[in-house]
């Protein structure tokens, strides 16, 4: 990342192909990882990355340097992924997920998800289940879960990146965690009982 100097950014702003290529070389793997987490498949993740860098080429001249170039590209990647998810799953975005239905969770399950060793996490069936659940989750919730719990952004930063209120981020995060917890509880319960 140290190779991204102010001078290189200035050259990129002037359209220098070599500088733009260096930026792509430096950031493509990290941003691909981010994009894959949202899109859940290689083809879409790569499409998002390509669109992100196309936007960078077209807009880098207005990049003011208030944040790092990586943060700027990070936000473009998130927004590009959201645009694509919205196209793929318009129904996910029509649902209001910003209100908590307390009646929905009025009972606590007495089943606890077991502690897992590292080797358990390598089990292919289990990894597949984890992927299936993330794919099944509403895209609006998935984006929040990835940004907050996986990427480790604060609630405040997640809200800024997505242009949402902090309350909305918290409510959606709660829903995302509940979705995964409830489904994984069922998964383990079935295996332990059978």
């Amino acid at each position, binding site marked *: 990342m140290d190779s991204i100097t102010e001078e290189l950014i200035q050259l990129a702003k002037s359209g220098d192909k070599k500088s733009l290529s260096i930026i792509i070389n430096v950031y493509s793997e990290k941003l691909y990882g981010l994009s894959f987490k949202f899109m859940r498949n290689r083809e879409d993740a790569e499409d998002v990355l390509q669109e992100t860098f196309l936007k960078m080429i077209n807009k880098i001249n207005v990049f003011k340097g208030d944040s790092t170039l990586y943060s700027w590209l990070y936000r473009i990647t998130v927004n590009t992924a959201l645009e694509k998810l919205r196209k793929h799953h318009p129904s996910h975005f029509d649902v209001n997920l910003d209100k908590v239905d307390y009646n929905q969770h009025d009972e*606590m399950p007495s089943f606890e998800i077991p502690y897992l060793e590292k080797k358990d996490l390598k089990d292919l069936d289990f990894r597949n289940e984890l992927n299936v659940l993330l794919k099944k989750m509403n895209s609006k919730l998935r984006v929040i879960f990835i940004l907050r719990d996986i990427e480790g952004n604060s609630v405040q930063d997640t809200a800024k990146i997505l242009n949402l209120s902090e309350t909305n981020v918290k409510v959606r995060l709660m829903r995302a965690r509940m979705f995964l917890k409830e489904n994984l509880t069922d998964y383990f319960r079935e295996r332990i009982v059978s």
Partner: protein
Amino acid sequence: MKHVHTIEEMKLICQQFGEDIDSEICEEVKKSLENCPECRIHFDSIKKVVNIYKSHEQDSDIPNNLSNRIIKSLNLK
């Protein structure tokens, strides 16, 4: 008999879900619910789920020649 939570208890728990599971405020809530084994199970399970996914999502396989293909497709070569 299943333990049924009051709306206020549930609201209190729900509000903390946006916080770090280990955050001070969340720890306080957990302490206040020490007499509720179901709540403990619930919190621990949520924490485990987040940790499971953190481990699971660490590495994604990077496609071969990713940068080169993008650079080429954007006519930068």
